[in-house]
């Protein structure tokens, strides 16, 4: 039996660590693009009927001022759209731990426990809903949109605030020799 020559060093190992921010951002943009051309497309058509979206901001502003009930319709529409966005992320992350964007950038989602539960997948995407449950949080929501990604930059574990709430993290695989 031939003897192994040289040092008997451990082989290459693969470990999961926090995903890099640029990859997360890229993955999010890809996902938003996919959403824009698929799931959100029918709602955009409704939006086009409600608002003169192609006539510039001024016209849209005028429409909003002229139509008392339009704000409510837009709010309903944005809630419906964001529910579908949450479902997109939650179902995919629950089922396969990734989304098309994340898959492209080779990053995935992990729970603190080996098993990722559906509520965790939902909670980590809840920041996409413009209001939940109602207007009090709607006031806080823009603040949350700012806080959520800021946590990513400043937290030691590179987690968004909603990831901390949901006990999940976004990871990529690092090869360690």
């Amino acid at each position, binding site marked *: 039996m031939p003897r192994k020559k040289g040092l008997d060093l451990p082989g290459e190992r693969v470990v999961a660590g926090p995903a890099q921010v640029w990859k997360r951002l890229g993955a999010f943009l890809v996902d938003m693009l996919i959403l824009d051309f698929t799931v959100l497309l029918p*709602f955009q058509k409704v939006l086009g009927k409600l608002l003169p979206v192609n006539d510039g901001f001024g016209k849209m502003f005028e429409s909003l001022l002229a139509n*008392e*009930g339009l704000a409510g*319709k837009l*709010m309903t529409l944005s809630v419906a759209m964001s529910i579908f966005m949450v479902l997109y992320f939650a179902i995919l992350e629950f089922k*396969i731990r990734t989304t098309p964007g994340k898959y492209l950038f080779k990053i995935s989602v992990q729970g603190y426990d080996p098993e990722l539960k559906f509520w965790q997948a939902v909670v980590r995407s809840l920041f996409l809903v413009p209001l939940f449950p109602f*207007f009090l949080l709607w006031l806080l929501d823009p603040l949350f949109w700012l806080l959520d990604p800021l946590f990513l930059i400043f937290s030691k574990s590179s987690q968004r605030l909603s990831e901390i709430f949901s006990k999940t993290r976004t990871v990529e695989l690092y090869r360690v020799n």
Partner: protein
Amino acid sequence: MGSEEKQKKPIATMVWVIALLTAIAFAIAGFFPEITHSGTKSGNVAVIPVHGVILSNGDSYFDEQATSSSEIVQFIEDAEDDPSIRAMVFDINSPGGSAVASQEVADAVQKSTKPTVAWIRDSGTSGAFWVATAADKVVANPMSITGSIGVTASYLQFSGLLQDYNVSYEVLTAGRLKEVGSPFKALTQEERKLFQEQLDELHTYFIQAIAANRNLSEAMVRDYATGMFFLGSKAKELGFVDVLGGKDEVKQILERQLKTNVTFFTYEREVSLFDILSRVMGKQSFSLGRGIGNGIAETNRNSKVEVRA
């Protein structure tokens, strides 16, 4: 082979999840508002409600706050195309609205080849009065509020508020008058004059339309086109209204003209779940806005007391 299968699985899952969500989204988006008629169609005269403020892209709620000219025009076209509909009644209870939207409705009423009757209830003023006069016959209650042949333009101007909060408004424009009507600056004398000229032109157009619709002289209509409203009885006296009365009188006019029994069928938009949700959210947004507005107003009151004569 096994690793290939593992790689294919997430892609397959992604494809079916996205396809499923897209299909559901299309189905749900189908529930968003479209103009439809409610009730079982059984009458031979279409009753088309013109309730609330007339807007070109308005929202017609079941509490009748506003109505969309597109919706009314759609109803008129539907009634026109329906061979079982012999005539149209415009059930008017509106203070008017946008000049363009009112004219759109008035034009559609005039284009109709079927007999038309405008039935003014509590009020049919300004743009709604324009619509009413476009019908073949106008019926109003003696106490209905009609007329108000005038044009008004207004907008909120925030320049004082910006100053109070030490906020400046910078804008670059090419075209001397491009910024006319900006809510962030006060009108100059020249701009005010130009605005007034446009309003006067619109007023004349309004007067001419009423005069033509009612076969009256322009000078006579202009005399009463002060913007003041008049009661149905006065409107009848002046020739703006044909018959004083209500639904029974409308029925009598049509039965006499059509020589048949008249049964009414009201055209209404179906109230969808979307409408109900929108209304709830609209009210919330309104309350929120009012709360913020009151807060700002309170701050202003505390910081600056103005006495106006």
